[in-house]
Structures are given as C-alpha cells and as structure tokens.
C-alpha cells in the first residue's frame, strides 16, 4: 500500500516530466497496433532515429536559445549552407572528412557568435537578427551551389555519418554484437551511477525514494534500454547518427544539469536583471548559447548532407521550424528559464514518430501537417495547464 502511495505522489509531482514520455509511448503503441507491428520493426526504428538526427541536434541547441528568451530562425539555412561548404571541401578541394568536419563545426560557431553579437551587443531582437541571417544564408547556399547545382559527395567516410553503422565485430544469431555490448555497458553504467548517487545522498542523510520504487525504476529504465538495443541490433546496430545524437544529448544534459555554466543559462532565462545583479555576465551567456546553436547547426548540416550523400540547393528549408516545434513539444517555455535537453530529444522523436507512423499508414501529406500542428498545440496546452496547477 505504502509503495503504491509513494508511486502515486511521485507521479503527481512529476506529471509534467512524465507527460512527454507517456505521449511518446502512446503514439508508438498506437502506430504499432495500427501497422500490425511494422512500426516497431528494427528497420523502421533504425530509419526513424536516423532521420531524426539532424533535427534533434538542432532542437537541443534551440531549447537553450529559447530558455534564454531568444529564438534562432537562421539555423535551417546555416545548416544547408555549411553542408554545402562541407561538400565543396570534400569534393572540390579533396580535403579529407576528418579535417572537413572540425572546419565546418568551427565555422558554425562563428556564425552563431555573430548572431550573438547582433543580439547581445547591438540589442537587435533575436527574431529579427536571425531572420536576417536566414535570408543571408539562404542566399549564400544558392550562391555556392549556383554553378554546380546539387553537389554529389563521394567520400565514403563522410557518407557513413548519415548512413553507416558502427562495426559489428561478429553477428550472433543475426544480432549485431557490438551494439549488444554497448547496450549492456549502458545499462551497467546507468545502474552504477544511480546506485552511487543514492549512496551519496544517504551519506548526506538526505531523503531518498524507498528501495522498492528505486528498484522498479532501475528495472524499468534498463528494460527500455535493452529493448531499444535489441531492436536496433536486429537490423544493422547503432548507426553513427544515433551515436552522435546520444553523445550530443549526454554532453548537453551534463552541461545543463551539473555545471555552473548550465545553472547560469537557466538563471539568465528566468530573470535576466536578477542574473546581472547576481554577477552573471548575461552577454557572455548569450554568446555561448548562440555559439553552441551555430555549432549544432553545422553538425545538423553535416548529418543531413551525409545522409543525402549530396548538398542540394534547398537543403535546410524549414529545419528551424521543425526544431522549434520539437523544443516546444519537449516542454520548453517561451517565458524563459524552463526546458530540458532530454525534453528536446523526446520532442524531436515524437515529431519524427508521427511522420514515420503516418507514412507507413499512407496518410496524405496535407493531413500529416495538420495532425503534427495539432500535436504541437496540444503539447503546449498540456504544458501550460500543468504549470498553472503547480504555480
């Protein structure tokens, strides 16, 4: 009885955080049933995650931009443009991919810092500053692809980022061994970190959840990780895109939840004046957040170009709006100071699942847009309502 009561209060207190996961679960379950299990097939999930990659990394950066009460509309065409530059470096100039990628990422940081400069130094509203950036980079993309049209990338190393999978070592019963090993390692790492956190808290004599709930949580999360691993192992294993996506999420999650920098970002978002008076350099935070956004836009461009194995003249169109939608579905608030990295990634997966599921069902594009719009509005309504209840 006590166990159930504790579970109930935990659930009530965290309904906002769990809401997204539940929504994702419901969406996936619905599609799985409607497609007779096709949705949850190894191949589909693998494809779904790969096609989420370039939006997901944008959504991560966009979440932080929105947390500090700004917006970045330029990221779509920045991704498109930098993707084209990558293609030119690789094909036209024969620069190897392991040098191209860092160059592109650094260029992305510079673009982001320039946006930050317009916003922080000149006080231009970010909506306008980045709208200008959007137009400029759209033009720049057309300019560099004008003569050649679509640039085909033939560099196998580069193309593997968007299409390749981590090596398997050996296949065991048709399953991808390295993927399985990584999955097991992830579970072990997760359990170890949870237990050591709990121990630490007990050492400090802080309250912790009861042992029962703790074990249920461990088993539950481990089960989810193993299920996903198992599904992916059944196809080609972890793709490089998924690996990169996970890396971005882990790094950004750590930065935002565990570091002084992360705390300062949220402080600036929840009250810029108070942050300034607390000795936080608000301009510096603005530069960092826009710089990181630029870098992730470059990464998005790399992922997209590599996935298509070419740079097109229209690459990046509407990426920014998909990223913003994913961030809002993930629970970010335009009033500032609220929004999680894990939320952004779940938001991106929710939106991608909707597209993927509806494609499998043969739903027309017109209806797809409307449904995705409805889900976006619904997610934000849910968010606002639960926040009101608590506040």
């Amino acid at each position: 009885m006590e166990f159930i009561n504790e579970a109930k209060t935990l659930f009530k207190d965290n309904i906002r955080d769990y809401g997204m996961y539940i929504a994702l679960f419901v969406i996936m379950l619905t599609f799985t049933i409607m497609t007779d299990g096709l949705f949850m097939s190894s191949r589909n999930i693998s494809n779904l995650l790969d096609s989420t990659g370039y939006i997901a990394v944008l959504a991560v950066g966009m979440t932080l931009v929105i947390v500090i009460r700004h917006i970045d509309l330029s990221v779509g065409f920045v991704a498109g443009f930098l993707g084209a530059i990558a293609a030119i470096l690789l094909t036209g100039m024969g620069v190897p991919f392991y040098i191209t990628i860092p160059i592109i990422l650094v260029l992305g940081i510079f673009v982001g810092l320039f946006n930050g400069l317009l916003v922080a130094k000149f006080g231009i509203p970010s909506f306008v500053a980045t709208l200008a950036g959007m137009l400029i980079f759209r033009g720049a993309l057309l300019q560099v692809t004008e003569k050649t049209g679509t640039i085909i990338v033939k560099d196998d190393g580069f193309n593997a980022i968007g299409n390749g999978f981590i090596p398997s070592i050996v296949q065991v019963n048709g399953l991808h061994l390295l993927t399985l090993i990584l999955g097991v390692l992830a579970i072990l790492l997760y359990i170890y970190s949870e237990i050591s956190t709990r121990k630490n808290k007990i050492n400090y004599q802080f309250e912790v959840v009861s042992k029962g709930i703790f074990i249920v949580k461990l088993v539950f999360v481990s089960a989810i990780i193993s299920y996903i691993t198992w599904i992916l192992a059944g196809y080609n294993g972890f793709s490089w895109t998924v690996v990169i996506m996970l890396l971005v999420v882990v790094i950004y999650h750590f930065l935002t939840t565990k570091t002084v920098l992360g705390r300062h970002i949220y402080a600036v978002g929840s009250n810029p004046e108070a942050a300034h008076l607390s000795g936080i350099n608000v301009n510096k935070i603005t530069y960092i957040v826009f710089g990181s956004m630029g870098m992730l836009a470059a990464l998005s461009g790399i992922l997209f170009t590599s996935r298509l194995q070419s740079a097109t003249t229209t690459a990046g169109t509407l990426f920014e709006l998909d990223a913003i939608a994913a961030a809002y579905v993930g629970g970010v608030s335009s009033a500032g100071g609220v929004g999680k990295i894990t939320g952004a990634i779940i938001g991106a997966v929710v939106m991608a699942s909707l597209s993927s599921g509806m494609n499998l069902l043969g739903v027309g594009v017109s209806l797809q847009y409307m449904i995705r719009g409805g889900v976006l509005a619904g997610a934000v309504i849910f968010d606002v309502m639960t926040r009101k209840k608590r506040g």
Partner: protein
Amino acid sequence: MSENILEMHGISKEFTGVKALSNVNFKVKKGEIHCLIGENGAGKSTLMKALSGVYPYGTYEGDIVFEGSVQQFNKISDSVKAGIVIIYQELALFPDLTVYENIFAGNEIKQGGIVDWNRTIAEAKKMLDKVKLDVNPETLVKDLSVGKQQLVEIAKALSKDVKLLILDEPTAALNEDDSENLLDLLGELKEQGITCIMISHKLKEVISIADKATVLRDGQTICTLDAAKGEISENVIIKNMVGREIEDIYPKRPNKTFGDPVLELRSWSAYAVHLGRQVVKDVNFHVKKGEIVGVAGLMGSGRTELALSIFGNPKFYKLQGELLVDGVPKTLKHPSDAIRSGIAYVTEDRKGDGLFLIQDIKNNISAANLKRVAVNGVINDNEEVKETTEYKKSMYIKASSLEQAVGNLSGGNQQKVSLGKWLFVGPKLLILDEPTRGIDVGAKFEIYTIMNQLIEEGMSIIMISSELGEVLGMSDRVYVMAEGEIKGELSIEEANQESIMQLATQ
C-alpha cells in the same frame, strides 16, 4: 447638498493580514486645494486607490460620498465618469504618440465610430491653453520635458470634465521652475472651481498652496489642519507625521566597535544617460567595519541609484569620482567585480530583479556564488543541498522544502531568500535596499536580528530605508539624501524623525 464635494467615512482596507487603512475619515470641501501628507506606507496611495476605483467597491469597508451621494466605483472608468481623475507620479502617457492623441486617449472624439482628428486637434489646443502649455499638439510626448508632460496629463484630465483632480507627488520629478509653474496652475484651476487633492512630501509646497492638509499615519487619520486658522506649519506637520514612539522591535547590539572604512566614496557622481539627468551628485560617503549606516530620504531621492552606482553599475551610469574599498581605489565595471571586492546588494525590488521566482530556494540561494559548491565548474549537488539547507534554517525561511519555487513564498520569506543569496557569497559589505518593505512585523524582527548577527561577525551594512523608525532603530550613523545629494550626515544621537524629515524635504 453639503459644501463638501467628497466625504470618505470610516474607510478600512486590509491586505492579507496587514491593515493598510483603518477607519479613515477624509473630507474635502468644494473648490479647495487639500494636501494629503504622510510617511511612505502611511496609506495615502491606498486611500486614493479606493477613491478612484482601483480597489473596487466592496473590497474596502466604509462609504465614499461624492457630491452628496454614496458612490460604488467598480473600476477606474466609473470614477472618471463621476469626475474624479488621478494623476500618478509615474505618468500614464504614451511616449510615442502625439500630445493630442494622448490628451484624448481612451476618450476619442468620434463621428460614427471614426475619429475626427481635426476636431481632436482643435480641442486639444483649447486644453493646452487652459494649462498654459505652449507646444504644438502634434509634438511627440517623449520629446517634452517631464514638467511639460505633467501639464499634458492635467490637460487630459481637464478634457474629461474633471471636478476632483488628484495629484500624486506631482513635483517629485520636476525642477524648481516647473514645480512653481505647476503650483501656479493648480491655483488657477481652483479659481475655475476645480477641487484638488495633492499628495506631497515637500512641506514647503504644502505650506504655500494648501487650504487644508490631512495627515495620515499608519493607516489612520491623525488630523486635518486648516490654513485659514494658521494651523499649517512645518513643525506641526512633521510632528503629526512621525509622532509615534519607536516600538521595541529593534533588537539592540551590546558592543559597538568600529574599524577602518570598508568603503569610501569621494566626490562621487552618476549621470543616467537614458534619463538625461544627474542621479547622484557629488557624494562623499563612508562606511566603517562593524557599522550600520542608514541612508534616509524620500522615494526618488537617489538612494537606490547611489547603491547601484557602487554595485558594479548595472544601469550603465556615467560615473565620476573615487571609490575606495579598504582604502584601495577600485573600478567596479560589473556586479561580478563588486562581488569579488566583497560587496553585496540586496535589491529593493526582490521580485523584479532580486529573485528567480520560477526556481527553487536552493538555486536562488546559491545563484551568486556557485563556485562555493562546485569543483572545476561542476556542481556538487549534495554539497549544495547541504549548505543551502543551513541557510534556510539559520534564516528561519519557512517553506515546505528546499525545492519549493520562490515565487510561492510569502513576501517575508522571499526577502529572507534574497538576503540569504547574498550571505552565501560571504561579503564584507552588505547594501540593503528597503530590507523590510512589504513584510510583516515578525519577519522584520527576524531580519533585524540577522543584521545584528552579521555585524557581530565583522560585516558592515548600508541600509537604505524609507521607514524612519527602522533607520533610527538600527543605524549607527545616518546620511539623508534628496535630489541625488547627501543633504546631511547625522550621528545617531543627533538623528530623530524631525531632523531627518527636515533634511529630506528641503
């Protein structure tokens, strides 16, 4: 009909447990200029808000009788319809609209739903003539001086057929010429039969213009003075304003020993570029180790601006003069510089620029000094919880848990979090700006006790306060500010309510 245009009978108003007005009686005769006087927080504004319908009928007790009949104003427009117009200290004009648009804003001259601009301009000219303001009605309001903007406000009131005009500290932001013009104009409006209530802190003005003066103190009517009977004089007013004995809510410090100056300002001036005026003028100031220095003065006297100019200049004033910390000249360009030099500033507006309301108590307390609980930029969560919990306890912050959002706490507890945030930094000089504004007596006492503890631990405190009782009860020395200048420095023996008020209302 009685000759009183306005009678307020037994008005009481309570804000969640705090009595702002209790049984106030206030009568204004037709055609007189009646001044309403009292310390900050005495209840003047609350009374006027009840009168104008900001607090709707039924949220206060008592009756408002205007022109012989009991009024039930539910919103501001009701009182305007009856002929009562308030002009607030913070002008309610649209700076980017023209003078004529402002005068008729919300009261447009229409013909079949379409604004008749030609007639509007013509009418606006008439109103401007009435207030003797010689400007083109098509000028943008933001291009006018504050004094002229005030006149536009009055013109706007006249356009609504005002019978009772209420002015809330109309001359607070004006220079002497503009103030004189305004007072002359009020005299003329009186000739035209318009009754006027003026809230003012400047006693000289009151003496020169008032027919009657009513003094409020602690939400009660103390007396109504009549100029015709020669009752209005500075001494009488001040006595009635401050009359109360200091209650015993100020804990005493046993041993007072002062060290060397922690902070010193020499010929310190600050020019606010966005306001286009000098907010701090040629200030010489010092605080010794172990001392509580009170900074008294009325609102808008430059006290907060002085504090901000010391605390890393977040409003980007143009500064002049010398600032010494522990005898060493310093240039503090950002609040973080000030924090590094051991200065902390607890803002007067805790909700506006003090706290992160959506974040929890823990994050607020640690916000200004996260390095204390971090190694190489990574926060040790447990250490943070442990240390902030100690502050929550030692400052008697009442909350369900450390994870409670600060926005949900009471004012007193919010103030303690705001203070706790700065104690977490471990400063040697603490600047407190209105440390007990809007909080109850119990929480006040707790904050005073904490202040004394901090002094015992070797800290120094600058306390900016509008509450004279607090200044006298807690300070070791008092500076009085007005118009950005230090008008006087008083030892605690010399300081009393009269001497401070005299300096502050110069």
